[in-house]
């Protein structure tokens, strides 16, 4: 065995390593891509959930768009005003306050309210059931199927299924918009967080059909439209739609709706409180009259 063999082996492989290393080092200088230092700074203040609620692929995409001026400093709906202020500081702009939004489910067809066409025993997936004839087992072809595709995509635990219908927890909802895409029926929409009135129905069927399928569906009677003092609610395609730019959240439409398809959480909470008080008073009253 000659020592020269070892030397050539070491030298050639080592040499190749040195050459490649040097070449890569040189190439990294030539092919260096200038990254705006703002991008990494902005990304560090963004929530980092990569939910895509801003419309960009993840927080990095959003940070790039903000740094390039393609997106406003308040582009992140999840971070809200707090993150917008931090991003504004980095970009040197003052953030304008954006009205917080929340998602809401436009269906109130709970197990008690809505009739079923048949019993569904397939895969627990809304998109799958929605492909079946008649748009799923629910009598109303527009209604929530309650299998929870929205619950599965929500990274913030804001959605749950109650009585067979999806419900949004407004305190947890950050308006990322994932559930809007996940719902095969397109039942979930945004509304301003401070407006408590919402039409909890999406049925575009005629009144007679709606009544046959659901005890709380919008029949397109137009009573809400007539009663609204602000021209904020209109019946389009047999369905009442609220224009939130005009809505003053008075709740009159919710009170006048004969099918209770429009809900106002404020009024409902008050009514629930009253009912509870009445029940308490009844319980407190001596059981004398029930002799």
């Amino acid at each position, binding site marked *: 065995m000659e020592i020269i063999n070892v030397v050539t082996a070491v030298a*050639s492989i080592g040499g*190749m390593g040195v050459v*490649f290393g040097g070449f*890569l080092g040189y*190439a990294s200088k*030539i*092919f260096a891509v200038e990254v705006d230092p703002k991008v990494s700074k902005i990304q560090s203040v963004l929530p980092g959930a990569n939910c895509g609620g801003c419309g960009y692929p993840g927080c990095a995409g959003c940070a790039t768009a903000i740094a390039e001026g393609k997106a406003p400093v308040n582009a992140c709906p999840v971070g809200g005003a707090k993150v917008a202020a931090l991003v504004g500081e980095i970009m040197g702009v003052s953030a304008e306050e954006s009205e917080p939004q929340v998602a809401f489910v436009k269906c109130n067809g709970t197990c008690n309210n809505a009739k079923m066409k048949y019993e569904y025993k397939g*895969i627990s*997936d809304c998109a*799958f059931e929605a492909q079946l004839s008649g748009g799923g087992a629910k009598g109303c072809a527009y209604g929530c199927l309650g299998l929870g595709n929205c619950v599965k995509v929500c990274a913030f635990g804001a959605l749950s299924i109650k009585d067979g219908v999806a419900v949004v927890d407004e305190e947890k909802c950050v308006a990322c918009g994932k559930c809007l895409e996940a719902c095969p029926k397109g039942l979930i929409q945004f509304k301003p967080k401070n407006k408590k009135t919402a039409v909890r129905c999406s049925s575009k069927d005629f009144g007679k059909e709606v009544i046959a399928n659901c005890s709380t569906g919008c029949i397109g009677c137009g009573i809400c439209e007539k009663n609204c003092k602000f021209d904020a609610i209109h019946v389009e395609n047999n369905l009442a739609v609220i224009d939130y730019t005009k809505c003053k959240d008075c709740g009159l439409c919710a009170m006048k709706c004969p099918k209770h398809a429009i809900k106002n959480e404020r009024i409902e909470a008050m009514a629930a409180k009253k009912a509870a008080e009445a029940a308490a008073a009844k319980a407190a009253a001596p059981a004398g009259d029930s002799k």
Partner: protein
Amino acid sequence: MFVRLILILLAGIFVNNYILSQFLGICPFLGVSKRVETAAGMGIAVIFVITLACAATYLVYNLILVPLGLEYLYTIAFILVIAALVQFVEMFIKKSSPALYQALGVYLPLITTNCAVLGVAVSNMQVGYNFIESLVSGIGAAGGFTLAIVLFAGIRERIEFNDIPKAFEGFPIALIGAGLMSVSFLGFSGLIKL
């Protein structure tokens, strides 16, 4: 000559399929085959890298190792070449085509550790292909990889929705699927004699 190249290409895709007949590159095959889109992305990245790696390793082997009589060092030399090449390609694409860089994404650096790349380079050397044949064999092998991973991703997407016994959920059923695919690819064996 031309017919031979076509045969090498087809042999790489079907007969000597690197995943299903030679069981190389199983790691990305199982790792990124959950969805057809990502599988196709990985496949395209692999085609790109294997073709370049075949050219680079051929040159290194025949211009450096053979003249110095260091053929026995081919494994370490090839690993070195492939790793450096993937790094360089990543940098080059990042600069020249950000869109392609976005599309290939994380798969490009992942390929550094794909043993199919090394496998193709070594088998080219052992069979003794010339430069053009090495390139074509590389394209064929990578095409076979892409075919297998895309088909497998399609199967796994279907499997997701099936009622699978608890013990078989996830990887076990995927591995069984891969095994059945491998058996079906056995049907190609002996089809082409080079």
